């Protein structure tokens, strides 16, 4: 199986969020996704990066965000890991519940799940890892590799 992989270690800043989104846009476009799918993948990555920078690492300059893109024959797999205390999944409300509709936050994970084919969230005491999977429909991993 042919694989292409890109890995980054980034600071806990808003610039990291922008950079993660831009890199995801480029990688998804290079993987052959159409414009709408590229936008959805990039938004999912942006939301995951926001969670890592803000809620995971709390903008702590000593903590890093690890971003990894992997393209196989079948999937684009993106992993975002922070060094926080671990996301408490029980505290994430359903943003579609009537009592939460008018809340100003809490939609990030929902949007990620809406835009990706698979989402795996693994919180631990040393940080949270979120793995995003998008199927490559009819694509070939022998295509152009993303430029780092």
């Amino acid at each position, binding site marked *: 199986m042919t694989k292409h992989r890109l890995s980054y270690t980034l600071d806990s800043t808003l610039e990291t969020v922008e950079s993660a989104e831009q890199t995801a846009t480029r990688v998804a476009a290079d993987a052959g996704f159409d414009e709408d799918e590229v936008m959805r993948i990039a938004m999912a990555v942006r939301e995951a990066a926001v969670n890592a920078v803000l809620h995971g690492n709390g903008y702590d300059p000593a903590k890093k965000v690890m971003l990894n893109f992997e393209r196989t024959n079948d999937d684009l797999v993106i992993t975002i890991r922070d060094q926080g205390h671990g996301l408490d999944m029980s505290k994430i409300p359903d943003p579609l519940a009537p009592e939460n509709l008018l809340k*100003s936050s809490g939609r990030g994970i929902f*949007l990620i799940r809406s835009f990706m084919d698979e989402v795996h969230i693994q919180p631990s005491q040393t940080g949270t890892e979120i793995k995003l999977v998008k199927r490559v429909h009819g694509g070939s991993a022998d295509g152009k590799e993303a430029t780092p």
Partner: protein
Amino acid sequence: MSMKISTRQVDGVTILDCSGRITLGEGSIILRDNVSQLLAKGQKKILLNLGEINYIDSSGIGELVTAFTTARKQGGELKLLNLTKKVHDLLQITKLYTVFDVKDDEAAAVKSFN
């Protein structure tokens, strides 16, 4: 492209012509500040023209909700005008499309405040 807002008055309604991105950080803050300043000045009929907004993230969606609820709490009204497909789709999947009063014609939108 960061967010930009220009303001104009039409028949007692304040129209905010927004362009760029409403995202975590600057974009969200610009929107919040503009709406807060209008409400503080007693300009409580607010129409957000989002026709040139090409991107919005979950923070931006939250900021729209905050603007809407803040206006309502202060006896005002905030409506949305000219949603792009991207913003429209996001409001649909977050079930907010029916919460906001969304218009696609400016003259009719202005009239609807009175």
